[in-house]
């Protein structure tokens, strides 16, 4: 009897993936879907990056040299849409797919078929969005924020833009539902909520944010659609509508959205710093509370994106105070990371390097964020390159660096081999130098008066723009090193199960590479306790 069960389990273990393209098209395996998400987001990262390079090439010198202003505007718009919805968000969903089941001792995601669907919607959505580049009137050029009435001047691309945003939203909502259900229902029965790793916690919070705000975005763009084609006047002043209402609705989505892109990054960093400091995470529980506070506050600060639209004084003051408050929980997180390093025994492998750069550079982005909260000063900063510098600091050496850190950290677990550490370090150093060269000068040109979203500028901004452009090209090329690391990922030495030096986390208790199915039987109490940062 016992041997039959053992045989059956063995049988099951050997039941691997299907062969060929069908494996990827029809897969319901969280690891395969995670891989699909990650590869897709990397492709989008390069497409969006190429668009950024068109922008930076044009801006290298004053005067128009390469593209017409309409096309320039299309490039900034598409760059943002692709990076936000196509690169950063799917990449974190990819990490969630791969890691959450393994971190909570679950065999797979709770809703595997929906998981497949939520991924395969994405290539369709971005296929549609990218096809607008070839349509009469060109790709959308009204900015990723899609403010009416300008966005209603989009050519044939307009309905395709709306439809692709709908699809992206659909995919995100399904992904979020899946993550919530998985965490709440598939967690190892012995694992308490507070014992969960911070990455899982941050994703749980993020998933709730997604469910709360993606429908709001869908509603906003649907109103744009009916304004354009069905004679409504939600946002058209001539028909009694209000263009500012769109901005309120958009940023009610948009501000939680920025935390959707950074909370999972906090999670990744909170996994990596303890491992390479050889110390438990400092303030595990306060990390959870800080993350939740940030999520709550993210719903009541949206109008700080709109301090120049002419709000009542009381409104401006409220949004200023609420925005300043976010600095407190965000500060707690940074202090906890520093507290984790304090009196540790640090080593500096590539994931740790990216994480340290994250803490430094994200904090610089946080500082400029605090400056932007001061309403009177924001009136000067608003829609200048200072803002561009700010959000790129939190998104590139913020979210993107966290993604890179996570990729290097878990890559040996995924492939079973150590990646090329030398190449990884080159990738890190070139990226870090060029990212600062690109975005730091933008603070100066912004303060000195250069508005964002312009294809040409006055001559006093020439030097810093040249620096930024050189930095951007360097940063773009640096990412090719990452591709090299991925292509040679299986050429290194065999990875051990733990991969690193006694890392905490259930994912390190399964073999490397992680077998197709993990945790068919949930981990026990002991194992969970010894692999949690929580003291509970």
């Amino acid at each position, binding site marked *: 009897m016992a041997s039959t069960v053992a045989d059956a389990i063995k049988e099951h273990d050997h039941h691997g993936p299907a062969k060929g393209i069908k494996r990827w098209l029809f897969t319901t395996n969280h690891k395969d879907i995670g891989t699909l998400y990650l590869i897709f987001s990397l492709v989008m990262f390069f497409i969006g990056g190429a668009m950024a390079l068109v922008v930076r090439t044009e801006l290298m010198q004053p*005067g128009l040299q390469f593209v017409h202003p309409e096309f320039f505007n299309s490039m900034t718009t598409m760059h943002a849409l692709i990076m936000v919805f196509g690169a950063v968000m799917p990449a974190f969903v990819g990490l969630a797919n791969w890691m959450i089941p393994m971190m909570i001792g679950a065999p797979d995601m709770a809703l595997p078929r929906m998981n497949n669907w939520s991924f395969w919607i994405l290539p369709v959505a971005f296929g549609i969005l990218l096809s607008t580049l070839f349509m009469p009137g060109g790709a959308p050029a009204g900015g990723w924020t899609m403010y009416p009435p300008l966005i209603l001047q989009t050519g044939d691309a307009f309905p395709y833009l709306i439809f692709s945003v709908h699809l992206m939203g659909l995919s995100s909502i399904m992904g979020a539902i899946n993550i919530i259900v998985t965490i709440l229902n598939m967690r190892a029965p012995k694992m308490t909520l507070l014992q969960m790793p911070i990455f899982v916690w941050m994703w749980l919070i993020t998933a709730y944010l997604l469910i709360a705000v993606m429908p709001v975005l869908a509603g906003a763009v649907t109103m744009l659609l009916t304004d354009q084609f069905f004679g409504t006047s939600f946002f058209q002043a001539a028909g009694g509508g209000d263009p500012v209402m769109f901005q309120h609705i958009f940023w009610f989505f948009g501000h939680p959205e920025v935390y959707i892109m950074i909370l999972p990054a906090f999670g990744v960093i909170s996994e990596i710093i303890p491992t390479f400091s050889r110390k438990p995470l400092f303030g595990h529980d306060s990390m959870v509370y800080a993350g939740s506070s940030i999520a709550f506050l993210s719903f009541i600060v949206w109008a700080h994106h709109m301090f120049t639209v002419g709000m009542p004084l009381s409104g401006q003051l409220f949004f200023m105070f609420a925005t300043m408050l976010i600095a407190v929980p965000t500060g707690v997180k940074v202090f906890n990371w520093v507290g984790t390093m304090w*009196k540790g025994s640090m080593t500096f492998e590539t994931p740790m390097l990216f994480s340290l750069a994250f803490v430094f550079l994200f904090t610089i982005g946080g500082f*400029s964020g605090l400056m932007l909260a*001061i309403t*009177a000063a924001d009136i000067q900063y608003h*829609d200048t390159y200072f803002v561009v510098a700010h959000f790129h600091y939190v998104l590139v050496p913020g979210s993107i660096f966290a993604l890179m850190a996570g990729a290097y950290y878990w890559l040996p677990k995924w492939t079973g081999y150590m990646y090329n550490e030398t190449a990884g370090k080159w990738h890190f150093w070139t990226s870090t130098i060029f990212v600062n060269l690109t975005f730091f000068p933008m603070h100066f040109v912004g303060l000195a008066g250069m508005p964002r979203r*312009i294809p040409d500028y006055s*001559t006093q901004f020439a030097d810093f723009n040249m620096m930024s452009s050189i930095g951007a090209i360097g940063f773009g090329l640096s990412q090719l090193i990452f591709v090299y690391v991925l292509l040679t990922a299986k050429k290194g030495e065999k990875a051990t199960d733990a991969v690193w030096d006694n890392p905490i986390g259930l994912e390190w208790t399964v073999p490397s590479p992680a077998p197709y199915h993990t945790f068919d039987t949930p981990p026990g109490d002991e194992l969970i306790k010894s692999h949690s940062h929580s003291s509970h």
Partner: protein
Amino acid sequence: MDRGRRVKNTMIRKSFLGLALLVFGGVARADWALNMPRGVTELSAETYDLHMLIFWVCVGIGVVVFGVMIYSLIMHRQSKGAKPANFSHSTTAEVVWTAIPCVILLLMAIPAAETMIKLEDSRDPDMSIVVTGYQWKWHYRYQNEDVGFYSNLAEESVKARRLDSGIDPFSVDNYLLDVDEPMVVPVGAKVRLLITANDVIHSWWVPELAIKKDAIPGIINETWFRAEQVGTYRGKCTELCGKDHGYMPVVVEVVEPDAYQAWLDTRSGAKQRYANNESIAAPEATLAAGE
């Protein structure tokens, strides 16, 4: 191995030094006009002071946090034989580093709110100008005066800005920052602006007046300034408004009161003057000008 470590250590140290230089180098550069201008109104100066205050607060916090972090990075490394401690929380530390930021923020919020209250007080103006944004030019109408005109990008910039124009932007004075007809206001007067738009959203910005207000179709926004210094102040449209968003500058000339009066006199009957001005008289523009 040992040597490799040392090289690595120096590399890391050098890169942090580089970062610090970049940060503080930025401050040094800020003095030669790469910072926000202090401007020529009481409120632009207050805004500038707020900006510098919050900037130095951030620098202060940065020095402490990054200082601790860099110290830890240098001292608490395995290659130096550091043994990991095992603590995972400290209630005292956590209360302290939650409370201190709260106090700093509270202290910051007070002057920030005071300036805002003044900025929003546009009562009792000496004069009012209706500013209307168009794709892609501004229109100014002086209330209670028979004066209204469009303000377009100056001809020289228009020629130079075209793709492959062959004109070096550096050879053009105030490239993209000059107009054919600037807004003219008297020095010391409280000027109220009523800002709106005719097609899409624009935003009227002059850094030295610390005024940036969105021009929104269907809505009239109010703001004000009192320039305390004679001079020409330049700004730009700051809300993406289509293909020529980068080409609709704002120029405000602040002049002595009698010069302003003289300017007003030359402007009476502005309507005829503008109907005859070819560079401006696009059909819909003439229509709108004949209000």
